[in-house]
């Protein structure tokens, strides 16, 4: 018979033994990140995920904008200050919003948009939907408007300010009339001036403090690259003097007067190159052998004789 339990023992549970439930891991633990990493991720996401453009900005840039015709420099700078924040689709929304108010889709144009009837229109460049054409007052404005859209879709960034913020670079397209006036050479010159780091040579359209800022930035960049502001090696580029008149090549003076010299490119004949090269190589090897062995023979013979 089983022994009865000692009277002092506590009553034994008949339920299955269960392990204490494990501590429920927090969301932080589940992701495997430390608190610092999570905080970093949060700030990063705030910085990287662009907040949507506020509706007030849309209202500002669509209703009665620009304030004058032609647009004042204030209007241009206002637009350029807002545009880098836009995503491509938000920019299309802006065009839409301007169209709702019957304005031309290009933000610096104060004309009403055009109103072609029908669904499609045949133009010299092809067939176009009138819905697309009616977003603008003219083809010129369409080009200018979409020029901005392309820059937002394929952004090139520039550094802005001392905090090292990156900003999408937006340039406005010059109008047709202006382009004709200035000419493409002038355009190119301007583009090159924009590329150079020190703003010394594009002071034509930039203010003095802007040029100064650029110079400062160039200095900072030099320090970043070299470790300190060192003097650079002076490089002079000289012109090669030509003393005699150049002469055209003739068949007789090229490659020792070979008949197929005109087919040679830098000494090689195209097409038959592989085959010929092999042959000549083989021959030369043979020649070498021939030259080598008889010479030994001759030498040995001579040696024996003497």
């Amino acid at each position, binding site marked *: 018979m089983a022994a009865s339990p000692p009277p002092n023992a506590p009553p034994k549970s008949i339920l299955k033994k269960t392990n204490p439930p494990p501590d429920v891991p927090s969301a932080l633990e589940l992701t495997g990140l430390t608190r610092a990493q999570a905080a970093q991720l949060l700030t990063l996401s705030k910085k990287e995920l662009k907040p949507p453009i506020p*509706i007030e900005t849309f209202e500002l840039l*669509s209703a009665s904008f620009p304030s004058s015709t032609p647009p004042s420099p204030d209007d241009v700078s206002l637009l350029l200050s807002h545009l880098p924040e836009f995503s491509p689709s938000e920019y299309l*929304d802006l065009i*839409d*919003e301007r169209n*709702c108010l019957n304005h031309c889709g290009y933000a610096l144009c104060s004309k009403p948009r055009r109103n072609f009837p029908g669904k499609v229109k045949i133009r010299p460049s092809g067939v176009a939907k009138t819905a697309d054409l009616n977003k603008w007052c003219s083809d010129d404005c369409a080009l200018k408007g979409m020029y901005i859209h392309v820059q937002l879709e394929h952004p090139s960034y520039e550094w802005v300010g001392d905090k090292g913020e990156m900003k999408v670079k937006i340039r406005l397209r010059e109008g047709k009339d202006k382009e004709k006036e200035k000419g493409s050479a002038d355009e190119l010159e301007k583009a090159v001036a924009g590329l150079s780091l020190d703003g010394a040579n594009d002071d034509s359209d930039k203010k003095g403090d802007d040029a100064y800022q650029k110079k400062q930035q160039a200095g900072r960049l030099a320090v970043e690259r070299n470790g300190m502001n060192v003097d650079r090696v002076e490089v002079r580029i000289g012109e090669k003097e030509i003393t005699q008149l150049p002469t055209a090549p003739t068949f007789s003076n090229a490659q020792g007067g070979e008949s197929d010299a005109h087919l040679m490119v830098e000494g090689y004949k195209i097409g038959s190159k592989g085959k010929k090269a092999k042959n000549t190589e083989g021959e030369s090897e043979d020649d070498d052998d021939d030259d080598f062995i008889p010479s030994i023979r001759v030498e040995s013979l001579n040696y024996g004789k003497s």
Partner: protein
Amino acid sequence: MADDFGSTSIHDKEVSRLWRAWRTIHEMVADRGYELAEEEIKMPLEAFRTKFTAGDGSPNRSMMSFSARPSAAMNKKFTPPPTASNPDPAPECGPIWVEFCPEKSSIGISVMKKFVEHCSANAYKAGILVTAVALSAQARKVMTVTSQYTLIECFLEEDLLVNITHHDLVPTHILLSREEKAALLKRYRLKETQLPRILQKDPIARYLGLKRGQVVKIVRTSETAGRYASYRLCV
């Protein structure tokens, strides 16, 4: 066509379409539980034409707006249960304002803002804007941003030409009150996420103006089982 009265006006088609939208929106507002007069809901086309068209037969949309108050039954349904801190809770529904937008080319931020401002200035708890054309993306945003204060909904005239709930294959949807929903979950020992779902953008959900978390009872007639009810949670 049944509503073709042989008039030669060029606006005839537009007026009859508008009349259909007018009927559907009235039926919808009535189905949601607001009080509307029978003669307003069932206005014949001729009466509609004389009331809302200008001399040349063109419809006058700006005259077509109307408001409605929630019925006693609706007030009861939308009143949260009294608690110790709030023994006499106010119903969560209020008067509704319905407007037909006269804009015909495109609807931008300004039109939408004006509508929202009108609704909040006159203390409407809900507003429905019926438009002939789609809203711009940013106007849609205005609608959702301000929806915490006043519930704004938008319908296209095109979507209101027929009342979908009158279709033979659309079963009856009934919105459950808060207590009914709690009772349902208790009765079947469910969490609300365990219910089948219905999308907020579902045409019926839009018709009833369902909000996230509300439950509809769907009553179908079955040849073998008679009537049979199922429930869906709006997500």
